[in-house]
């Protein structure tokens, strides 16, 4: 059976493509090209004069210790959020896959956090861990743990990591559960008869068969921590204290909006853009080569 429709001439295909192309151009290529153009410009604080400065914004960026720190913050933040949210979600999915009674309720409850808007999630975590109001912060205090994310950079980083992880577990859980359920039951049974104990069975059979799901989630999670965690960071710490939780995407915002350094901010977003293109390329390469068991 022929899957592709074929047209004579070019008019109809072009007309059919036009809405999609228009949206892509207006909302993606035009702003992106504006960002690239802007990154070569230097404006004064009042926006009255603009000068074309070639790569000066980029030079300034990579010599700015604050920017390099944001790189480092992003690396720590994304590593922890990815590893934690993936491994906790996998654990939950394995439990849910085993459990039979009440599985639907369990799954539904686990999916709820994903429906919470990032800003609301951030506020929840602020309240729980507020040094003077928060229940959990008080609990930590009673255990003798000094806790103050408003002053201590590491505490602040821990808090945003927890909030961002909590938010992403639901999503990862769903995919892992679907992945686990697509592994043929008889393969697991064969491993049982072949004498593999549960722990060994998991690492030699289940986990390798789950690898396409894991890789897909890894890419999605990296994109999540790079961009979608902006709301959480903004509400929980606002990048502080003193830039300790300022990630790359947050710095784009704070330098551009707060610092009115539009050129520098644009240069940062171009750097981010290149990183995303790189990651997307890896993803596509993977999907094309994906191991089909």
């Amino acid at each position, binding site marked *: 059976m022929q899957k592709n429709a074929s047209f004579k001439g070019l008019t109809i295909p072009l007309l059919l493509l036009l809405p999609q192309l228009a949206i892509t151009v207006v909302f993606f290529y035009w702003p992106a090209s504006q960002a690239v153009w802007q990154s070569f410009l230097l404006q004064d604080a009042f926006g009255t004069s603009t000068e074309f400065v070639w790569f000066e914004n980029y030079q300034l960026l990579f010599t700015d210790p604050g920017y390099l720190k944001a790189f480092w913050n992003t690396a720590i933040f994304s590593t922890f959020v990815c590893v934690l949210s993936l491994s906790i979600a996998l654990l939950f999915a394995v439990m849910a896959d085993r459990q039979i009674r009440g599985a639907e309720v369990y799954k539904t409850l686990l999916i709820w956090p994903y429906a919470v808007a990032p800003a609301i999630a951030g506020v929840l975590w602020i309240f729980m861990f507020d040094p003077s109001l928060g229940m959990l912060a008080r609990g930590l205090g009673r255990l003798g743990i000094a806790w103050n994310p408003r002053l201590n950079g590491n505490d602040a980083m821990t808090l945003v990591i927890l909030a961002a992880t909590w938010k992403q577990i639901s999503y990862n859980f769903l995919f892992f559960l679907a992945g686990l359920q697509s592994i*043929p039951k*008889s*393969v697991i*049974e*064969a*491993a*049982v*008869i*072949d*004498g*593999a*104990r549960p722990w*060994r069975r998991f690492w*030699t*059979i289940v986990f*390798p*068969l789950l690898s396409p799901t894991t890789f897909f989630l890894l890419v999605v999670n990296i994109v999540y921590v790079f961009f979608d965690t902006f709301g959480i960071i903004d509400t929980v710490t606002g990048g502080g204290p003193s830039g300790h939780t300022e990630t790359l995407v947050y710095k784009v915002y704070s330098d551009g909006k707060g610092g009115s350094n539009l050129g520098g901010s644009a240069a940062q977003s171009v750097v981010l853009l290149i990183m995303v293109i790189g990651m997307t390329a890896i993803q596509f390469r993977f999907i094309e080569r994906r*191991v*089909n*068991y």
Partner: protein
Amino acid sequence: MAQVTLTNVKKVYPGGVEAVKGVSFDIPDGGFCVLVGPSGCGKSTLLRMVAGLETISAGEVSIGNRVVNQIEPADRDIAMVFQNYALYPHFSVYDNMAYGLRNLGTPKDEIDRRVKEAARILAIEPLLERRPKQLSGGQRQRVAMGRAIVRKPQVFLFDEPLSNLDAKLRVQMRVEIKKLQRALGVTSIYVTHDQVEAMTLSDKLVVMNGGQVEQIGLPSEVYKKPASRFVATFIGSPPMNILPGTIDGPGIVALGDAILEARDLRADLAAGARVEVGLRPEDIEIASEGEAGSLPFDIEFIEELGATQLFHGQLAGLPFIMQAATDTISAQPGRLWISVDPDRVHVFDPATGQRLGL
């Protein structure tokens, strides 16, 4: 090598569905037992209970004089071949076969020796480095067999292993399984819904229906003296013709106007009692009109099977099939007079379906 004994084994699922309703039989050491029956008869559940993949609700399963009800599948010393082969897709053929031995902590050189030996027996040596998805159905089947034999288990369990193969390959693999089992002498339990596989492979045939055993015996016994109407129509192809009749005297049944002698018929049945008479299509002989015990068969159409022909038609107003070697009868659609050897007339109780035999 071990004897397998099932004693009043039951499976009740939560919710009260009784899949296996108390089954008892034993398989001698080195025996090849085939469980056969229609889908949903409980044969696979029974096999999975022997494997340890399903819990046993009641009764006892023992392998080599050891009750295994509470023993993990891995410790039962069994190997299983699954219907869809259940090969590990991310392992090579070699690793698929070696996996069970590695789990046991077998030394590397011993694993290597056993895997290569199994590969040689099954003629899959050139495939050892391939992945399952690079293999054909028949090759996957061999790898699944290889995975079972490298472990040198006490019992082989086969769960419809040939049903995913095409007809030609199925015949070939069937013969190979039988040869292999003979050569290795490992006690085997084989589940199938295919009565040809059941007849050819087994030296103990267990026919199941509705969670119960209908008949246990040598395949030839089951064929010659089916214990019930169910077994009679399930074993044999095309299935046995069943016609309503009445008892006419000791060892005599009446089919409409015709009188048939049935040697294997209980003598204590009252004349006039309603019975069901079973005649196998391949047991029908040609008679002449007016001969004692001859029946009128109205042929409607003929199917050519090559070596044999199937004659479809009506006998006493009911559908009837007769089978004969090609060219022995130059039958045309129309009336033919037939008879059956009195030793091959089967009589069943219409209420219970049980054989009314001696």
